[in-house]
């Protein structure tokens, strides 16, 4: 997660136009509104339920990835989007919730026997559900009051679970498809690069604790 912003880094970083945070939510929900609108008007192709389900899941993964790019962007390019990270993370959660509701209601028709069988028998469903469960406490503590209550360090530790969620989401995507089509491989590669960057950086920091991060 984000460390303290060094004065040097902040000075070097070029100015990002100050867009109100609400704009991120408004823009972020456009795909969902569009999908439901097209779906209700039967314009999502031959298998609209499946299209909606997959598109919502994919948007959840995209926003999760977007939230994970905030720190490397700041550290490597000096672009500071920290004030939008909470919105991006919450959008990932909202899309994951819509994805899950679509699966439960439209796909499985609330057939809880079938849903339970899926959860215990199908690894990709097990992983998908576990990933959603991980996102819940992160979403619930994505507010200033929670940060104050938990304290910054404990909050940051808790929110490292987002790394597990990102791996879970990528695995869930990889396991649902037949063979190895490019799209889930590309998303998995992006997740691995973003997490690998953090791992390398923390190892480098441990090796030479005095060096200031570049």
């Amino acid at each position, binding site marked *: 997660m984000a460390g303290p912003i060094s004065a040097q880094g902040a000075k070097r970083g070029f100015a990002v136009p100050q867009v109100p945070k609400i704009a991120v939510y408004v823009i972020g929900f456009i795909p969902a509104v*569009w999908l439901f609108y097209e779906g209700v008007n039967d314009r999502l*192709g031959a*298998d609209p*339920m499946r299209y*909606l389900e997959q598109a919502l899941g994919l948007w959840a993964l995209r926003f999760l990835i977007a939230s994970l790019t905030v720190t490397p962007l700041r550290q490597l390019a000096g672009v500071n989007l920290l004030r939008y990270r909470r919105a991006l993370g919450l959008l990932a959660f909202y899309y994951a919730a819509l994805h899950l509701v679509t699966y439960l209601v439209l796909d499985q028709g609330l057939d809880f026997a079938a849903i339970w069988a899926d959860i215990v028998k199908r*690894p990709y469903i097990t992983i998908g559900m576990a990933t959603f469960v991980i996102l819940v406490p992160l979403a619930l503590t994505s507010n200033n009051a929670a940060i104050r209550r938990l304290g910054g360090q404990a909050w940051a530790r808790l929110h490292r679970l987002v790394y597990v969620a990102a791996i879970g989401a990528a695995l869930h995507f990889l396991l649902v498809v037949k063979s190895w089509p*490019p799209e889930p491989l590309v998303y998995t590669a992006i997740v691995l690069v973003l997490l690998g960057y953090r791992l390398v950086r923390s190892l480098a920091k441990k090796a030479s604790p005095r060096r200031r991060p570049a």
Partner: protein
Amino acid sequence: MLIRRPSDILPSEITPRDAYLNRRRLLAGAAGLALAAGLPKPSRAAALSAVKSPLSATDEKLTSREDITTYNNYYEFGTDKASPAAKAKTLKTSPWTVKVDGLVAKPADYALEDILKPVTLEERIYRMRCVEGWSMVIPWVGFPLADLIKRVEPLGSAKYVAFETAFRPDEMPGTDTIFPVLDWPYVEGLRMDEAMHPLTILAVGLYGETLPNQNGAPIRIVVPWKYGFKGIKSITRISFVEKQPETAWNKQAPDEYGFYANVNPKVDHPRWSQATERRIGEGGLFVKRRPTLPFNGYADQVAQLYAGMDLKKFY
């Protein structure tokens, strides 16, 4: 985001099917077999004349031509359902030859026209169940595979029939990827009794017209009691062999896709249930799952082929 737009309306969509099929029959004398006439690669489907078949499943609502021709699995043209309709136009389907070889009295490279000359095309309305859990009802035009097999006279030692799809990277953009999705060319196979079964057809058309490329033009297999991936498309080779041939999906994931691949609600795919299916075009967003039937509803005709076999083992 890709939102599919309806393509040009085809006559088959606005004329009642019976009416246009009758009209086709009247015109048949003049038009002849568009395929046999060796027309240059049609940019638009050409009309075919076909007789109705008692083997059709007629009580179910047909899936629309739009859905059948825009929602396809044909990985040689990409893994996305919409890719084949967008990209398969590059496949050159004329001239077309099918190599017949192996344990057979009359091996040869047969021109498609010669294969079709003596056959009577039939309309076969079949349910199609994809291994992914969706289904359609498709009015194929074709003829029994048995007709062709009898003509080329397989030897007594031939126990299986192996099929191969065209493999042309220049015309098939989906085969030209860094990680091949499948081990090209696509191959499939049937046991001889399955291949000779009257329900098994070589299809050359659907909805009374020649097959669109994305549906496997110019000639493909349809085995209605098996999962859709057994219906190999754009066939260039038919081999008669003694041993059970390799199949493309079985090579890719042997524990997920068996040689038999009979539709069976009791044998799940390892990653999803096969107990139910979604009928394409039914219910839109609020699609209701319907129970999947053993042998896709063709158990009366084909179950005896597998008498005594453990269908959980031979999935």
